[in-house]
């Protein structure tokens, strides 16, 4: 069938032969395969181009020292597969339970070979359409009124074979090494090629340029055999447990910090690599100097004539000569294959290694071109997990859902519930949803209210950056207000210089939930969909514009937000006040009473009891409710006696009041937890 499809889609345009697909995916890494999976599930016409002979070729080489620093948790004590994905940073999303990474490696920090093996299986078990040994070397546009986006993408591979697509998904990763040029940079070895055998470094003095995980990984490997290691980079070290960003330095790699702070010769230095120069002396030792000195020197003079910083400042930190200098400066996106007409531009500032994209992951320059995977990290760089498998597996799904709506008229998947399920549906998601948890503050669950707030529609994991375009992007209507559910860290909790272990950092009381520091669910309520302008002008540090009301569910040590009083009750009150209704559950008996005494019924009675789904409750439960003062027991009412009569409305009010005020002992129980 595949062949027939290919053959039928062969077409000739201006002499060249083009193989046509609706969707072309560049790169069969984790993101490319993830995209392929969703396209395949939706029955779309797609192909994945992979320059190597197997998927995940980057992982075949990198990380050089083979230890992945993504968590592969075997046990969580829970069987909830969705929840468990919160602690599985390597698996891709699929329906196939064989394709869970924990079945591929038992290591908490697995070997990269396991990833290669996993990706191979993912592609083959799911029968994804990957065209290997196809390196796309050029991408250009062909204007066409008929095309989905007003143009086709024309791709050329290394054999000058051409392909044509309506939609281009770039999942090519970040594989071009970041190189800094300075005088003497020819003496620098790259992370890509440097020896990984510690023996080669025995008794040597090593300078490492860069301060990312690859730099520390390299240092960790040779820490025990070198004289000492110095590490130089422009910015201070950013510890991931302080920044809550998984791309910063992970504790698993930070052995050098230990030896630096415990005065064991190794050290960290801050300085701009652009100002650096390296010169080699006659013995082959490398000396650090400044570019400034080189510019002033007499060209004809020998090496000895070059001024070294220590000549002027005799306690210059890096005056000791080095045997080796290793560059570990990370990677950047390969911009070279895109024709100028695609306007694939690098981002500005600290995201210049990434292509410019919108929060919908669509290129800023070209409609129909989406960037997936680690190259799409500019959206949440140094914030969330969009640059990593455990983050972009969800953003890739989001992009797929956007495309399904845009090109195939399939609206964003949603479920409609009666309003009585509102609290439950939120509690369920914040407790198990992995996309919300991993892509915190980037992907959000959206609740669209129906008219009169009797029902609502639940949309999962929508990119909040394009919240203003929700109706257009999802095909769903948001006319009656909406809730946006995201996860957030405390506003001022994360940062390279923050003390994340300070005493009393955890909030315990629901009424102070807004000061929660650890990742916790936050619900925003808008009466109207925020406009693009409001999105742009949102308060600093806010992921979303100022809502009409906001609720924080208090942080929880176990990330288990199911406590009836601390978590669910305040949430219910928030929802009730947003909707101006009463969302309490009632036993059938209460509904029975209300049916005879009220012209209107609370939603729980309206949607349950009246539709013959009333909660009769067991004898014990009703007894408990009576003891709590929330249900009145009329069994022993002496009606014939001379009890003082209640006023007609007074008794009703009395009942209502009874519902609100339980016995005092309960209050003590509630407060006891803080003591």
């Amino acid at each position, binding site marked *: 069938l595949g062949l027939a499809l290919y053959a039928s889609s062969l077409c000739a345009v201006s002499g060249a032969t083009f193989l046509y697909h609706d969707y072309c995916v560049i790169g069969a890494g984790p993101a490319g395969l993830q995209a392929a999976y969703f396209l395949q599930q939706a029955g779309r016409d797609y192909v994945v181009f992979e320059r190597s002979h197997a998927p995940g070729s980057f992982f075949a080489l990198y990380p050089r020292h083979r230890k992945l620093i993504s968590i592969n948790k075997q046990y969580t004590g829970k069987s909830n*597969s969705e929840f468990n994905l919160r602690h599985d940073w390597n698996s891709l999303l699929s329906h196939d339970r064989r394709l869970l990474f924990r079945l591929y490696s038992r290591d908490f920090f697995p070997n990269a070979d396991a990833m290669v093996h996993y990706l191979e299986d993912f592609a083959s078990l799911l029968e994804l359409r990957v065209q290997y040994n196809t390196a796309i070397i050029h991408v250009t546009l062909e204007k066409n009124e008929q095309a989905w986006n007003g143009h086709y993408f024309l791709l050329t591979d290394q054999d000058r074979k051409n392909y044509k697509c309506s939609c281009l998904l770039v999942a090519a990763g970040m594989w071009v090494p970041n190189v800094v040029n300075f005088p003497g940079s020819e003496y620098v070895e790259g992370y890509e090629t440097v020896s990984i055998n510690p023996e080669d470094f025995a008794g040597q003095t090593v300078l490492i340029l860069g301060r990312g995980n690859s730099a520390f990984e390299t240092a960790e490997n040779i820490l025990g055999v070198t004289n000492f290691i110095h590490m130089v980079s422009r910015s201070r070290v950013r510890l991931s447990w302080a*920044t809550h960003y998984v791309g910063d330095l992970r504790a698993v790699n930070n052995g050098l910090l230990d030896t630096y702070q415990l005065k064991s010769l190794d050290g960290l230095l801050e300085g701009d690599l652009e100002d650096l120069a390296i010169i080699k002396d006659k013995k082959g030792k490398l000396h650090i100097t400044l570019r400034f000195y080189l510019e002033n020197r007499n060209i004809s003079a020998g090496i000895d004539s070059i001024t070294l910083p220590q000549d002027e400042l005799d306690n210059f930190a890096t005056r000791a000569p080095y045997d080796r200098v290793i560059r570990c400066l990370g990677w950047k996106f390969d911009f070279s294959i895109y024709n100028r007409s695609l306007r694939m531009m690098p981002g500005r*500032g*600290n995201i210049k290694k990434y292509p410019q994209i919108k929060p919908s992951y669509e290129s800023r320059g070209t409609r129909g071109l989406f960037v997936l995977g680690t190259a799409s990290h*500019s959206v949440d760089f*140094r*914030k969330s997990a969009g640059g990593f498998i455990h983050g972009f597996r969800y953003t890739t799904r989001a992009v797929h859902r956007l495309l399904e709506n845009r090109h195939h008229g399939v609206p964003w998947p949603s479920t409609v*519930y009666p309003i009585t399920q509102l609290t*439950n549906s939120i509690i*369920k998601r914040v407790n198990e949803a992995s996309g919300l948890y991993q892509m915190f503050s980037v992907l959000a669950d959206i609740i669209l209210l129906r008219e009169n707030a009797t029902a609502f529609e639940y949309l999962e994991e929508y990119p909040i*950056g394009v919240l203003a375009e929700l109706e257009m992007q999802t095909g769903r209507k948001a006319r009656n207000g909406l809730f946006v559910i995201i996860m957030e860290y405390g506003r001022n909790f994360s*940062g390279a210089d923050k003390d994340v272990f300070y*005493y*009393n950092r955890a*909030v315990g009381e*629901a009424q*102070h939930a*807004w*000061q929660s520091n650890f990742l916790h669910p936050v619900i925003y309520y808008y*009466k109207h969909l925020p406009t693009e302008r*409001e999105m742009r*002008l949102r*308060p*600093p*540090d806010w992921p979303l514009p100022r*809502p*009409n*009301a906001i*609720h924080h569910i208090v942080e929880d040590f176990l990330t288990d937000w199911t406590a*009836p*009083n601390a978590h669910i*009750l*305040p949430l219910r*009150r928030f929802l009730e006040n947003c909707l*101006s209704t*009463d969302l*309490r559950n*009632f036993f*059938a008996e*209460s509904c029975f009473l209300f049916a*005879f*005494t*009220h012209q209107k019924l609370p939603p729980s009675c309206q949607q349950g009891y*009246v539709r013959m789904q*009333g*909660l*009769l409750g067991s004898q*014990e*439960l009703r007894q408990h409710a009576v*003891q*709590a003062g*929330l*249900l009145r027991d009329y069994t022993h*009412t002496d*009606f014939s006696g001379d009890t003082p*009569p209640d006023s007609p*409305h007074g008794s009703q*009010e009395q009942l209502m009041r009874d519902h*609100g005020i*339980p016995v005092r002992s309960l209050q003590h129980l509630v407060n006891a937890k803080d003591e």
Partner: protein
Amino acid sequence: MSAQKDRWVSSLVFLLFCAFSIPKRGSTSLQQEPSPRHYFSGLEAGKTSLAFFTPSVSPGAQPFLEQIESSAEALQDYGVSVVKVNCPKEDVSRYCGKENALRKAFLFRGNRLIQEFPADALFDVNAIVANVLFALLFNEVKYVETLADLESIENVLKGKSNMVFAYVPATGTAEHRAVMEAAFVYGTIHQFVLTTEAALLKATSHDDPDVSSAWLLFCHCQRATDPAQPCRRTALAQPLTLLNIHRHLKLMGAPLVTEVAEDPEKISTVHLQLGLPLVFILSQKETYQADRRTAEFVAWQLLGKAGVALLSRDLVDLNVLHRSNVALKTPDEGMPIQYLVLEDTDEVITLVEDKNKVKQIQEDEQEEEEDEDEKENNNQDIQDDQVVEAVSRDKKRELPLEQILVLTEENFHSSLSEAARTVVLFYASWEAVSLAVLRSYSEVAAHLKGTPGVLLSRVNCWDWPGLCSQENVTQFPTIRIYKEGQQSVTYGGMWGTQELSSFILLSQVSCPLKLATMDEAEGYLRGDFPSELSSHHHTSFLGVFSSATSEAREAFEEAGNILSGYVRMGMYFEDDALALSQKYSVSPPALLLARSGGRSVEGIALSKHSVQDMVQMIRYELLDIFPEITVPNLPQYLQLGKPFLILFSAGDISQVESKEMLKLAKGRPQQAFVACWLNLKKTPVGHGILRSYFSTTPSLPVLLWVNLHAGGQVFKFPSEQSITEMNILSWLEKLQAGLEIPSSTLSEEDWKPPLPAYDFLQMMEPPVPELSPHPGDSPTQHLPKNPGGDTARGDTAQGDTATREEPSQESTAEEVGSPGRDLRGTAPRLAARDKQGKRHSEL
């Protein structure tokens, strides 16, 4: 407030100084005397003077002299004149001759030397005034060193006068001077006792006092009657200054409780004049004694902080809520008196001690006045959901769930094939309604124990979300019955043990059940067949079809699928179907209906053949003509959308009433109301209904007309008339004609949120004028013009800098934000946070 207070303070100061300075007003402050001889000759008896002798040229003692000179004015207020006596060169008298005498000052009363002060006791004005007064007030101010001394003074004073006990860390300090100055004025009224012994301070105060700061106690010894008990003490909470001491003594001198019998708005007491609030305890004649005790108790607690007055409501016509028991008058002008309802005396204390609380309580009060139903904010964290609360109170009880198989993603499909029918409860272990149903489900399991072919099981969707979504379970709880090879049936009835058991039992047999012989059909109508259901009394429907009428039969079968589990349905389409139906005088297609309990079988011709019509018809036929309304069955009758004619009965209704009502109901098959009755024994919640309708208990049985769906009026059938068809009909006619007055009307109230939510938005961004006051407004329009430094910015914000367009505005807005935000991560902020919220201590 502060302006008002200042006024009081300044007038007080003025009064004090007037009082002190009257005697010597008009004279010069420092007297000069040419020689000692001249000086001593001029001394008047009874006049006090502080003299110092100075040689004509004496450069050494200059600073000491300056201090004495500057204290002259202060001492003048106490009738002490300061005299500088010049020593002529040749003078070698007692005061001028000796070198060290020139470094001293001498206090004379008349010409008697009281004390000589060395220069080091006179280092500044405070020291001079303090020491001079200390010397002068030798009798008025007792100096003690031991606790025994203090106690002996106290014992002497008991029942006579009050004691002012002051501790100063050292003599000659400003506090010492203040105490002495106060003693000068009050020394004749109260006994002053002074100490500098830190040990004594420790012995007299309960907690660990700060020995480096002065301390003053007012000991109420005059009131003390029991010699064994120490006098009650009231400490001065403010720093020891003359003004504060004066104020304190003034307050201590005021009556403990003022009795008031006039408009509280016009009352003014010492407390109000001194800028302190006045608490009124509202009293009534009946409770006077208790109120008096309460007032005194409160007054002791509030001594020095507020005044307490006992206001008799009987004597003053107060236009306030009857339940108000406390009023608070603040010294601020224009502030109305607040009337409050407080529960205990602690609340009165906190009311005074915490000014902010006053405002909050006041606001609460106002809200309460606006809406009586509005509860106080502090109930927000108390569970008011009866189901959630009941379930959480029951969570410690272990449920008997052994009979219920736990299904997982692994064993779900294999388990379904094990039994003919598998009942599955899909629930979430954290969800209250689910857990409530699980409890009923466990009762069902006990009930159905041993029933062959039925397997009860459950799936916790919190453990197996994939399985639940695969089975398309979107709501908790959901109960499904899976039958091999057939589509599963979702339960849609009441979540009760009875109803659920009946559903599961009825689901055992196919619906409709195909009957093969005439005997089976007859048995079916009698309820003997099939044997599985013989113990189960239920209305049975038997569809009788001649084989030709397949259209009606198909519709009936389809209706059976829909009603499966709720209704007993059978069908018979053998050749002798005609004979069967004719027995009940209908011809096929027809429905034979055997009501539960009833002996007779009704025959109904099937004219409509659509599935919907058939389902509706069967449902309608299930309804009784004159049903007893119960909690589970009400919804079926509510759905008819008709008014209720309902007879409330204390127990079973009498035969006569039943007959009359039945006649009424039967007589009009398409009538516009539901005739029914309610057994208060069986449905006790009916008492609640009657209570809401009537102010006085109606005699039972009572017949009511309730317009449940339109207007909500409730009419009561006149109790003097007997319940007969005729009487009721004529009453109903009158009702229709609008000639009757409704006894009650159902509440039209909307179901609003029972309590407010935490306003986190407000807490996160208190409405600063710079920020948008209205939600929805764009905040940037209010941003300040000058972009501030970028120093406080965290790295988290940097990430989105590039995606936004105005980076300079971001940083400035941060500084505008809530106070404290710019102090992120610093110690003050953490300290401030600790004050705001309780936190978990370390785990």
